[in-house]
């Protein structure tokens, strides 16, 4: 009888599975990947679990980036921390500063016999979550960088090409797009795109103390003529109808591009996957523009997104399991899968080469822009930044930029306020580390 066969098979499989289960090491991974990204995370975890029988990884969605970090901190204080925690770029200083909270990923891998060479990672990714000496502390996971998307038909209609420089945007592209009936441009994240990566793209120092990577007190260098000129220009573009500002929300600025009201949109290379589904028109992407008056040799941008951190206080078996998962995660195959499904860049050279060899970029050239921009020639100030209480510093930026664009504050006053408040926060953070 069918039922008996089924029951026997079930009993047998339980008997076989049981001893294996007894030795299995369970680890948990708290992440902030919702929606489609969360599904891909679950697929990666399921693939890892299916690929071997010694370890079982359980991914848990803990809300957005800030919520995940706060949940992780609360759990750590209660001794209930997960094995792996995803922490976003702006929270990096918080978790890396708390030296006893994490096991540096480079140590973890080496101690557990997983080969590690930081040169395997693409250059824009290598240093962001590393310490001053270049030792990798967090494992880059979802890595993206700001790039410029554009509506192909809109640019054709206006008879222009995507601008390489802001000068070109100002004098040629934007007026042409405006007369063609479009709002020429919008952007989704001023602290990330127009501040952090502005400094990186133009190879300008963002903070003292090696952009904050060194030990000791860090001061922000935001009160800088180049960026002030950029925001003064942006304000005048908005006033002249050459730029659209829809508030601080990411989606509020992306939506007009999807509705084809805005012709060009500065977003994340990680937006590619979602945009492919939501935009029913042909779009492409190119590098973030730069000011020719500031530099004639624009440099790479650095990654945004988040990294995975191995939490301390775990057993040797759990650490081994985490190391093995990182080995699986950084394999070219997994990275290529992640890259294709989400649009985040592959973090290793091997995965990038695999995607090239597979002809992926021949079909979707826009998907390569992010990684190409990350691997542009770098400079002294292009590896990233490390600043504490940075979430609040970003909030201050957003607030002051909003006032500046609304005309409530002059450019000089807004930047002076950001500088003053950010330095106050940095000094406070330094004292928490004392």
């Amino acid at each position, binding site marked *: 009888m069918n039922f008996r066969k089924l029951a026997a098979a079930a009993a047998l499989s339980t008997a076989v599975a049981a001893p294996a289960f007894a030795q299995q090491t369970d680890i948990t991974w708290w992440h902030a990947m919702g929606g489609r990204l969360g599904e891909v995370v679950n697929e990666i975890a399921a693939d890892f679990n299916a690929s071997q029988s010694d370890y079982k990884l359980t991914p848990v969605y803990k809300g957005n980036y800030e919520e995940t970090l706060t949940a992780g901190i609360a759990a750590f204080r209660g001794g209930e921390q997960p094995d792996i925690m995803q922490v976003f770029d702006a929270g990096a200083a918080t978790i890396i500063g708390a030296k006893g909270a994490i096991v540096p990923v480079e140590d973890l891998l080496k101690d557990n016999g997983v080969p590690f060479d930081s040169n395997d990672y693409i250059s824009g990714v290598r240093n962001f979550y590393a310490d001053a000496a270049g030792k990798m502390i967090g494992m880059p996971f979802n890595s993206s960088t700001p790039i410029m998307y554009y509506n192909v038909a809109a640019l054709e209609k206006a008879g222009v090409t995507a601008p390489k420089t802001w000068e070109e945007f100002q004098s040629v592209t934007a007026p042409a797009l405006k007369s063609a009936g479009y709002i020429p441009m919008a952007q989704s994240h001023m602290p990330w795109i127009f501040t952090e990566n502005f400094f990186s793209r133009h190879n300008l120092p963002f903070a003292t103390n090696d952009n904050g990577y060194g030990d000791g007190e860090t001061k922000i260098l935001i009160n800088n003529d180049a960026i002030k000129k950029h925001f003064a220009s942006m304000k005048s573009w908005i006033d002249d109808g050459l730029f659209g500002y829809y508030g*601080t929300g990411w989606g509020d600025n992306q939506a007009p591009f999807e509705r084809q009201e805005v012709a060009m949109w500065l977003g994340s290379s990680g937006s590619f996957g979602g945009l492919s589904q939501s935009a029913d028109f042909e779009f492409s992407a190119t590098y973030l523009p730069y000011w020719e008056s500031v530099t004639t040799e624009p440099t790479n941008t650095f990654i945004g997104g988040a990294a995975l951190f191995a939490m301390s206080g775990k057993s040797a078996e759990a650490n081994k399991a985490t190391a093995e998962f990182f080995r699986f995660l950084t394999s070219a195959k997994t990275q290529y899968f992640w890259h294709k499904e989400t649009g985040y860049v592959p973090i290793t050279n091997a995965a990038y080469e695999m995607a090239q060899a597979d002809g992926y970029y021949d079909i979707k050239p826009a998907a390569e822009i992010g990684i190409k921009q990350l691997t542009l020639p770098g400079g002294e100030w292009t590896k990233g930044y490390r600043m504490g209480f940075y979430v609040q510093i970003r*909030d201050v930026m*957003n607030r002051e930029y909003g006032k500046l664009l609304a005309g409530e504050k002059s450019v000089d006053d807004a930047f002076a306020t950001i500088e003053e408040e950010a330095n106050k926060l940095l000094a406070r953070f330094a004292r928490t580390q004392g």
Partner: protein
Amino acid sequence: MKRVQFRRPIFPFLLLIPQLAIIAVFFYWPAGEAIRGSFYLEDPFGFSSTYVGMDNYTDTVTGSEYVSVAKFTLGFTAVVAFFSLALALLLAVKADSVLRGAKTYRTLLMWVYAIAPPVAGLFGILLFDQAIGPFTKIAQSIGWDFKLGVNYWDSATAMVIVAVWKQIPINFIFFLAGMQSVPMAVREAALIDDPSGPSRFFHVIFPLLAPTAFFLLIINITYALFDTFGIIDILHKGEPGNNPVTLVYKVYLDGFRGNDLGGSSAQSVILMVLVLILTVVQFRFMERRVHYT
């Protein structure tokens, strides 16, 4: 009247213990922790903590934004409390005189009360959406370039409208119940003495409603100060930028989002003190003017 007295005086205290324990664990302990934490600068992970005296308080109060957030909170509270009370009172007066279909009408008005603040915030997002929001379109048709999330005062308007809308039903229920407890004899006597409707309302009915109104005033002030959090969070989509926030929301931003435990503890202690002062003022000065029957 004979006083009920327990024979053993310990017994009533035993009965009180569960209640006192709950208050101690869930109210006094956290409050004590907040007061203690407000004097320290602490690493979020709890590795090091430095005693900094009053620095958290001075940093908070001297921050360029704190005073304007405090001012906005006061204005917001006053406007929300006023409009939710006034509109609810108006609706209650009208509902009181409805004869046909009164129950249906009242039920419909009360429905909104069952909506959770974040859901109310979501309605707000839909109503005030920059592209498809009906309110945005209406505003634009009268020449008001309404932009939620971009313009400070437009965002404030949206916050007030959603907060008031959410609070009207509970005020309405209390006002209606209060009015229906005004004795018929009083109403009839007033009708003979004073034929003017509004004047009768302000001289007779409203004074009798004063205890209800006073109670509701307190409820509404605490609502606007604290319970509007969900509405604000959803309307700002978690990224306040240059939009107005209340003091409570700022505690969340600095403490929960920014992991600045010392600073946000100091802010919550300031809030505790404010609420304490508010309560004392209300009960010592305003309650004297209220006439309880």
